[in-house]
C-alpha cells in the first residue's frame, strides 16, 4: 500500500499533519509533555485558554471524578497571552509544534485585544475562540448560548486577526444550528465542539457541592456518545470544517467522530490519564487506515452510511 496521507485541511493554509489535536486545558502549554513524546508529531497543540491578563482561576476543589468522567472548574487559570508569547512560544516553535492559541475574554473587547496581540506572531497557526467555558462567571458560556453574542465575539476577533479562526462551541447551546450559522457569518473558518457539559457533584456527608463553583464541566468517555451526536448534527449543517471533541480515548473513538463528519478531532481528558495518549490515537488511526486500505484520511470524513428508510 502507498504511503498514508493523514493530512487534513482546516483552511487552505491551515493544514494539519494528522487529524489529532490536543484540547485546550488538557495539555498545558505543551512543554509539560516533551519528556513523553516529540510534540511536533501531534496534529496541533491547542494551548490552555489565554486571556488578556493572567487569571488565578477558581478556589479549590476544582476537580472531581465521576463514572468514566471528570468534572472540572478550573476557571481558566492562565499566565496571560503576553507571558505565553514571550516565555512559552519560542520553545514550542523551536520544537516544531503546531500551535493553536485558545483565547477567552470576559468582554468582546478582551477577545479582540487578545486576538490582536496574537496576530502576526510567528509560531501561532490558528486561534480557537472559546465561547463555551462553563467555569467562569462572566463571558464564557454566555457568549456560547446566544447566537447574537457569539456573532459579535467572532466578528471582533475576525477583524483583529488574519489567522485561521476556530470557534469552540458549547454542547449546551439552545439552538446549535443558529449558533453555527451565526459564527459562520461572522467569519469563523472552522468550528470545534464540544466543550465540557455543565455538571455537578454533591458531597452527601457535608451536604455541599463538591466544587467551589457549585457546577463545573464534565469531560471524558462519559460524554462521548453525546458529543458524537452533537458533532454529527453540527457537521450536517455546518459549511465550515468541524473539529470533533469529547471523550476520545483511542483511535476508534476518534474515527467515530471523523466518520460522523469531523475533519479533525481533539483529545482532552485522555492527556491527563495517559501523557502519551494522543500519539497512541494517531497510531491507531493509521493502523485502521492500513487495515481498511484508506490512503487519504480525508476520505473518511463524513463517510457515515445512514440506514435507508
Amino acid at each position, binding site marked *: 500500500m502507498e504511503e498514508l496521507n493523514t493530512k487534513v485541511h482546516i483552511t487552505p493554509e491551515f493544514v494539519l499533519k494528522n487529524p489529532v489535536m490536543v484540547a485546550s486545558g488538557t495539555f498545558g502549554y505543551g512543554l509539560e509533555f516533551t*519528556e513523553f513524546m516529540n510534540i511536533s508529531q501531534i496534529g496541533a497543540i491547542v494551548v490552555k485558554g489565554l486571556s488578556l491578563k493572567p487569571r488565578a482561576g477558581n478556589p479549590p476543589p476544582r476537580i472531581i471524578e465521576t463514572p468514566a*468522567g471528570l468534572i*472540572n472548574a478550573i476557571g481558566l487559570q492562565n499566565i496571560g497571552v503576553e507571558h505565553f508569547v514571550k516565555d512559552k512560544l519560542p520553545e514550542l516553535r523551536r520544537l516544531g509544534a503546531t500551535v493553536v492559541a485558545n483565547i477567552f475574554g470576559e468582554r468582546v473587547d478582551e477577545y479582540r485585544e487578545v486576538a490582536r496581540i496574537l496576530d502576526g506572531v510567528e509560531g501561532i497557526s490558528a486561534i480557537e475562540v472559546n465561547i463555551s467555558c462553563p467555569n467562569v462567571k462572566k463571558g464564557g458560556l454566555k457568549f456560547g448560548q446566544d447566537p447574537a453574542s457569539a456573532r459579535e465575539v467572532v466578528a471582533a476577533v475576525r477583524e483583529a486577526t488574519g489567522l485561521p479562526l476556530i470557534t469552540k462551541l458549547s454542547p449546551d447551546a439552545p439552538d446549535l444550528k443558529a449558533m453555527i450559522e451565526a459564527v459562520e457569518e461572522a467569519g469563523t473558518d472552522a468550528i470545534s465542539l464540544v466543550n465540557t457539559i455543565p455538571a455537578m457533584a454533591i458531597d452527601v456527608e457535608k451536604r455541599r457541592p463538591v466544587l467551589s463553583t457549585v457546577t463545573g464541566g464534565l469531560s471524558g468517555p462519559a460524554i462521548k456518545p453525546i458529543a458524537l451526536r452533537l458533532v454529527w448534527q453540527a457537521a450536517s449543517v455546518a459549511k465550515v470544517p468541524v473539529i470533533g471533541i469529547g471523550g476520545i480515548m483511542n483511535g476508534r473513538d476518534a474515527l467515530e467522530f471523523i466518520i460522523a463528519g469531523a475533519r479533525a478531532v481533539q483529545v482532552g481528558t485522555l492527556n*491527563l490519564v495517559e501523557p502519551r495518549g494522543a500519539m497512541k490515537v494517531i497510531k491507531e488511526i493509521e493502523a485502521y487506515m492500513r487495515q481498511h486500505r484508506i490512503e487519504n484520511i480525508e476520505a473518511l470524513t463524513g463517510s457515515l452510511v445512514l440506514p435507508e428508510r
Partner: protein
Amino acid sequence: MSTMRTTESVEVLSNIALFPGHYRITLGWDPLTVKPGQFVMLRISPTFDPLLRRPFGIYNIKEGGVEILYRVVGKGTSLMSQLKRGDRVDVLGPLGNGFELTEDKDYLMVAGGMGIVPFYMVAKELLRMGKTPRLFFGVRKEEELILADDLKGLGAEVEFTVQERDGKVVTELLESKDIAGKHVLACGPEGMLEKVASICEAKGVESFVSLETSMACGMGVCMGCSVETKEGYRLACVDGPVFNVRELKWKS
C-alpha cells in the same frame, strides 16, 4: 525538571495486607532518581471507571522494586487491594518536589496515620547524612503502630500517640516538646497539618508540610490541584506536595 518522569506498565511483585484496610504493594519498577516525599500516579484499571490515575507517595525503593503503602478508601484503592502478583499497573512518576534535605539542618518528622509514608525515605536520607531520624507519630488505633516498624528498624527515634488508647493526638506531643532549632516536616490529615503549622509558628520554628489534594494529571497540566498560597494558587503536584507553611493560606 530535576527528575526524569516516565509512564510505564509495571508488574505487581506483591500486594500484602498489613492490617485491615491497609496494604503494602511492591511494583517491579526502577525509577532513575527519587527524592523523599515524591509520589507516583497509578493507573489501576484499563477501563474508564475509575478514569483517573491515583496519587500515592513513594514509600521505599529497593532492589528491583518500589514500595507503596495504601489505605482502602474508595473504588480505586479497593480495586488495587485485589491486585495479585503478576498483574500490571501503569505508573507515572516520580512526581512532585519532595522534601529538601540539607546537611546543615536538624529535622523532626511529624506524621499522622498514613502520613508516615514519605518519612521512611526521609529517614534513610537523614541517616546517610549521619543524623538520627526523629519521628512523632500519631495514630487512631493501636494496630496502626506497625506502620512505624520499618523506621524503628532503621534506628529512628519514634514517639507515639494512640488516640483510641490514651486520647491524645500527635500535635499535643509536638506542643509539649522543646523543638527549638528544628525543621519540622509533617504529613497527615489536613487538620493535623494546620495544627502543626500553628504550633511551629508559635514556637518560631520552620515547618514543611506535604499536602493532599484531588489530582487529575499529577504533572502540572490540568491545574486541578490548586493550593491557596499567599502568592495565589500553586499546584500541589508540581509546586508541592511539600510546601513551606509560611507560604500557605489555610482554609479556617
